[in-house]
């Protein structure tokens, strides 16, 4: 009986301990989620900025302080014209008003204590009234060496004698539905009523700007050809290196491995010369054919093919499949993930490449530009229209993004695996 009580006591304590551990874990997880979300927001912020700025009007981009969402000023019809609405306080109420365009001379009144002699416009003010409604007493008060005229002004229904700090014009604002409701304010400091509105038309106009539509098609064509070519040559080469014995194989493989280290810039000048000799300079082919070979891709494919059991191949050959048949009927279906990974790496590389197109396609040859070149030109040309510039950037970034969403698994896991090998 006593042992039983002891056991329940122990199990209860163990349970308690477990629950507490779970609790700690949960709190820790929430903490981790908060940090991860903050980092994710920070990392996504440039993209959010890109997306929202690409949907702004040009004036909205230059709004200070900066804000993320695209706004447009609200307008209404007043006297047969579309005019901007301003939000301001009238008789203690927030109302939407329109600028009548009329300016009224105002006097700004204060006391001797509140006046700022050096900068009268910075003085603390008691009231502001149309100058015609105040009566000049004819007297002046000297404050710190400057004479200020004294006026008789009505404040809260009582007449009061105050100093005129300065005069200035104020615009007359009226409520569009009720022109008797009026107020006066400095047009420059009033804030317009705005609402969020997306300028989808930006995307339409940017496509025509600087041939962006043409360069998108060029880039797509080049990228598809390069990707298909690289995958094909890598499949054949990888199969030869992994599954066939031939004279000179290991020597060639070693050379291939060595070339992975060589930076592209070593080749850039002779390749440029070669393109000139072949007459490919300024043509899209210069972006395709020299890029069909990839030592890295061949290496990756070989590494993957090595892991495929030899028995499968032997069985296929017993069934009468040729080498070619074995590769495309047996190996390729088994290597979907490896092919996808390589295709994605190549796609990104080809789509985003910049220095080679910059060198080989001249600046004036816009029909053969790829998106990176067009963006580079857009950067110079649309400096005063950041919204269009960023719309262009969004259009260029979108296709890899769509691919990423479609093939996220291969992207992240495939690339993670190449790193750990």
């Amino acid at each position: 009986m006593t042992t039983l009580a002891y056991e329940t006591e122990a199990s209860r304590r163990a349970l308690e301990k477990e629950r507490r551990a779970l609790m700690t874990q949960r709190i820790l997880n929430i903490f981790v989620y908060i940090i991860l979300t903050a980092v994710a927001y920070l990392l996504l912020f440039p993209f959010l900025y890109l997306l929202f700025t690409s949907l702004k009007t040009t004036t909205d981009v230059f709004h200070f302080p900066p804000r993320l969402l695209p706004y447009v000023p609200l307008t209404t019809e007043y006297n047969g014209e579309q005019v901007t609405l301003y939000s301001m306080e009238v008789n203690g109420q927030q109302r939407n008003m329109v600028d009548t365009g009329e300016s009224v001379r105002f006097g700004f009144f204060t006391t001797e204590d509140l006046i700022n002699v050096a900068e009268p416009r910075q003085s603390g003010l008691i009231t502001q009234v149309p100058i015609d409604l105040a009566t000049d007493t004819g007297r002046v008060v000297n404050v710190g060496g400057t004479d200020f005229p004294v006026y008789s002004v009505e404040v809260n229904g009582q007449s009061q004698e105050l100093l005129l700090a300065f005069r200035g014009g104020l615009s007359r604002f009226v409520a569009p539905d009720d022109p008797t409701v009026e107020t006066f304010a400095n047009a420059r400091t009033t804030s317009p009523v705005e609402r969020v509105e997306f300028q989808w038309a930006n995307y339409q106009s940017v496509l025509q700007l600087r041939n962006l539509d043409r360069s998108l098609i060029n880039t797509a064509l080049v990228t598809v050809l390069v990707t298909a070519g690289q995958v094909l040559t890598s499949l054949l080469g990888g199969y030869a290196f992994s599954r066939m014995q031939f004279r000179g194989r290991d020597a060639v493989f070693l050379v291939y491995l060595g070339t992975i280290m060589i930076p592209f810039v070593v080749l850039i000048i002779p390749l440029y010369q070669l393109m000139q000799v072949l007459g490919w300079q300024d043509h899209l082919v210069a972006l395709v054919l020299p890029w069909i070979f990839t030592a890295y891709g061949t290496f990756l494919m070989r590494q993957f093919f090595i892991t495929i059991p030899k028995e499968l191949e032997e069985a296929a050959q017993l069934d009468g499949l040729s080498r070619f048949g074995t590769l495309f009927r047996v190996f390729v279906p088994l290597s979907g993930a490896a092919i996808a990974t390589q295709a994605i790496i190549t796609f990104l590389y080809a789509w985003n490449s910049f220095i080679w197109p910059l060198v080989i396609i001249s600046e004036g040859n816009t029909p053969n530009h790829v998106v990176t070149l067009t963006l580079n030109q857009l950067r110079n040309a649309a400096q005063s229209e950041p919204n269009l510039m960023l719309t262009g950037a969004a259009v260029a970034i979108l296709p890899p993004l769509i691919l990423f969403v479609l093939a996220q698994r291969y992207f992240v896991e495939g690339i993670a695996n190449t790193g750990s090998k």
Partner: protein
Amino acid sequence: MTTTMQAGQRSGIQPSDQGMTPQVMLVALWQALLGVGLVWGAIQVWNMPEFFNLGDVVQRFLAVVILLTAIAAFASAFMVWQLSNNGRFIAIIMNFSFFALSILLLGQVLGLYQGLDQLSEGLWRNAPWLLGFPIGYALVWVGWRFREGESVREWLVKAGLGVMMVTLVILLLLSGLPNSIADLFRALVQPVPLLVLGLLIGFFVVGTYLSRDGARFGETIAQRESWQGWLFLLPNFVNFSLFFAIPLLLSLYLSFTDYNAISRPEWVGLDNYIGLLQLEFHTIPAEQASGTVLTQGYGEIASIGLGANRLVIGARDTMFWVSLGNTFRYCFMLLLLGVMPALLLALLLNTKIPGMKFYRAIFFLPSIAAVVGVALIWQWLYDPIIGFINYAIRFFFPESNINWLSDPNVMLVAVVIMAAWQVVGFNAVIFLAGLQNIPKEVMEASTVDGAGPITRFFRIMMPLIAPTTFFVVVTTLISGLQAFSEMYVLLWATSDNARLTTVYYLYEEGFERFQFGNASATAWLLFIVIFIVTLVQFRLSNRSSAYQD
């Protein structure tokens, strides 16, 4: 006669497979003719008055290579005559290689490659039809979702592929394919293309015949695999030779020449390298101006105080040294901002919480965008007035106003921040893969042994993921050493030397000042730096992998 007997004995399958036949004689003759043609070609190349402005060395080198090929052709002709399988091997490889080269050449003489521009233009004119591809893909995708209904699935996949196929045909037709084909035929009926076409067919026929007639040459299975292996490698190898190996050699040669794209390259030995690297050191009193001691043509790149004196370092090519210094500074900062935070992120992601994959995908996102596009975004984020970065900084330091992209002291930092943003998630994903490869038992055992989280991290995790760390560091470093687009696009408005990296210097030297020789030498120096970095990594990771055993 004896060789024939031996061959017959070795294969000994059918009498018809043995002995010399007219076909074999024809092949030997073909190989001999090929040799003659190649000799003629070598002489032509040797005697060319102007070899594309590439200079005598390249011309002679090419002629010798062609001559060597000619010798191989003669040798194979003789050996095929002798029914030797080695000769047949050479002949097969040679014919198929020339077949591949002829295809490329035919495209070249027909102007097929420039036609790619017209194809692209055609696609552009008929862009709405391109929608057929996503529609077809969507059908296939939907089809793949049906696990059970085999017939529905098959039908959808077929429909999708059909839509894509029809789209392709329509696009090609609308893009003026019929006209192009007509043009192609018209271009083909010229002496040169016809000759190339004839050679192409000849190479193919001879190669195919030889590959099928193995028994006559006493071919073993291993020998069969040998030429088959080469044929598989061929597309890869032809491209490698044409667009990698040849340019690589040419680049090495150009780095030893004075060459400005218009004149012929002139051999200058190591002059380019010396000009880039030459330094001079002077110790002068601290108050003395350094201009007085530096040799004519030298510029000061550094000055180090040594008490009352200071050491002035001058360089002949100041821009190169400045660019090299910037590159190293950039790499150092990129490692700080792009690798260490990545490790922290990976540790956070490694907590096995649900939704980890979602975060991982988001972190990865910046690395897939084009640098040019990204730089456009950051250009506005960095804007001194309306940019969000200064806006955020002003929350903490209201008086600050950093001119990120025009102040020489911070512009490199601005580029590093952008580059780190692009690379950090990518690196985190790779680190995460390394962390997940650590066996669970190891971590559990260490917890049982009473190791705290910090001890566990430094004593167990870090050594175990050392290979991953090296991989991340080296890939980040190598990409940092080649940084160009980032500066070119983000710092376009400034001409301050702070924007120069080594590749930027190379670009300006090569494609603005057209000093091809010097630019090539710069490229090779950069390669040497990358080579050393890789070598060090290799050594270190070999040593560290001792932990893994």
